[in-house]
């Protein structure tokens, strides 16, 4: 997972803005209406982007984890970048849901982030970053 310092971060050029692209280039998925499940079917234009930024609007708001997982399930293979309130203690969760880069909040220490990303080698759920993250596998006996 690529960690990016805030001052090195250039927000994606927003040339191809559509309803799903906010001013800063971060993708804002419109998931407000439960009965409009079509909102979760990403359009081809979005999936063709080389990079999609998913915002963590505030600490504790975990919707972007599901957004990333759903993008991977839809076959998206580009860079999924975490932006917003991104702190080192959550990088591992992000990586495991399919994020491939993160713009750290200005006060965060990237070296600590790298350590935390390497803290566990294995998990109970199916393996990291793969498209089948959510296959309900449970670990084989060690």
């Amino acid at each position: 997972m690529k960690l990016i310092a805030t001052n090195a971060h250039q927000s994606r050029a927003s040339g191809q803005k559509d309803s799903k692209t906010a001013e800063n280039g971060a993708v804002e998925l419109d998931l407000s209406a439960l009965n409009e499940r079509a909102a979760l079917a990403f359009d081809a234009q979005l999936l063709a982007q080389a990079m999609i930024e998913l915002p963590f609007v505030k600490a504790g708001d975990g919707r972007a984890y599901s957004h990333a997982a759903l993008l991977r399930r839809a076959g998206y293979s580009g860079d999924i970048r975490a932006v917003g309130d991104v702190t080192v203690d959550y990088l591992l969760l992000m990586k495991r849901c399919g994020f491939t880069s993160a713009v750290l909040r200005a006060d965060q220490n990237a070296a600590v982030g790298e350590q935390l990303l390497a803290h566990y080698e294995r998990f109970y759920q199916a393996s990291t970053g793969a498209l089948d993250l959510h296959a309900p596998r449970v670990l084989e006996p060690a």
Partner: protein
Amino acid sequence: MYHYNAFDSEFVKLRAAQYRDQLERHLRGELSGEEFRPLRLQNGWYIQRHAPMLRVAIPYGVVSSAQLRTLADIADRYDRGYAHATTRQNFQYNWIDLEDSADVMDALAAVGLHGIQTSGNCIRNVTTDAYAGVAPDEIADPRPWCEIIRQWSTLHPEFATLPRKFKIAVSGAEEDRAAIGWHDIGLQLRKNESGDLGFEVRVGGGMGRTPIAAPVLNAFVPWQDILTYLEATLRTYNLFGRRDNLYKARIKILVKAEGAAFTQAVEAEFATLQARGPAHRLTEAVLSRFSAHFEDKPGVAGVPSHFVATQSIANEDAKAYSSWTKRNLRAHRVAGFKAVALSLKRAGQAPGDMTSAQLRAAADLAERFSAVQSPTGQGGELRVTHEQNLVLPWVREADLPALYLAAKAAGLAAANLGLLSDLIACPGGDFCALANARSLPIAEQLLQRYEDIDELQDIGDIDLHISGCINSCGHHHSGHIGVLGVDKDGQEWYQITLGGSDGSTLSGDTQPGKVVGPSFAADEVPDVVEALINTYLAQRDTSAERFVDALKRLGHEPFKAAANAARRSTARQPVAA
């Protein structure tokens, strides 16, 4: 019971190390209190009124004697010599210094214990029937499913920051002993008409300020698909649950507000996951691997069903022993065995509290009398119950007199299971920063008032539940008599409710109790409870009619009248509830 493999053991140790790093960064000032909070919560550390509270996960309430001994050692070394069994089958400490917290996590990890996901906005420790795997009325053993769900939900990356906490309960029996209707997800094992195993899935139950019994979302999910169904439900909640209002963030609010749209959303996501192919289904091989952990050990087989006592009961103990065998034993799936409850409800100690000496005594009892699960004969097995008691699940009938005498010597033989004094209570305002009022003094007064076993047996089965605030940790909503602490002008007041149900056969369909009237003063509450009991005793049609049945037959009015007649300080100026 499930025995940790090398991966499980390593995992909890890594988790303890991760927590130590977080604590140290916090103590060095690199991690603010606000940012440390969700991290410590997901390891079980709350900050309470006096000190941090640690909630230790006891997965689906199954604990070994060795683990109990470690809990006792921690109580002595880091706390004030006791621990507290909770309504979610866990243990809590109330007096550990935060600076010691990482050392405590290491001590727990050494015996496979931890506080992972016992607090915070995540999937909490899964709970089940305390008699799982030994009850004769089981459709299927829920323990392999609990273990599968434990593993699936442990550090699941997508569901670590949900809108709010999320509690899953599993029942495998005809009788619901896990109050599954009060959970965010309640799973009931069922067989369909073809005899295939699956789950009735209830979603959106919960207590708190908006008590709701979970409706059935899907009447039969095949067992192969249960994790997929959980995933679909959790994902829908993670995406659409409210995050703008703490009090409306539980899944019950989403389910209630969206109704059929919620069901459709979950079913659509479930269908999408299923369409991805067989890799997303659980297989016989996986289930067998988990079930193998819960197979009966050789010691269970071949026990003669006839009763040959290994110790005899002296005449002076005969009556008490008889009471104990009537109340505290439960039928067992295996002939010649009983499941035996050790009551943690007695005057002088808070409900569910155990001193370190009692923890060790219970470990001794489990090793002597409930150890057939271990191939070596070492290491007994116990269960922590939803009602804050312990259960020894593997007791030979021949050992019952010896067990009784040993339990009595340890202060663990109160014969009150299911009776009035077997009350549920949260730690309340004595410990909890959230509480509006104290629970424990009310519980203590009632425990002192109702100590006579003959009187308790005459009153019979009744659920009395006490919460110190609307967060409902003491499950007042599900009590036949519920007591709720409320704050009014900085003083302690108590609302009394009647007719709540945990969903058991005795109590009826899961439902919250109804408020009797304006709140009562603290010193009135024991008298109000007594007035309710006396009304029942005076008006029951036979001694076989239980409190909750009399309540249904007579209606609430005579009980309300009796409660209101017990008012003293609140008689003239009733305070609005």
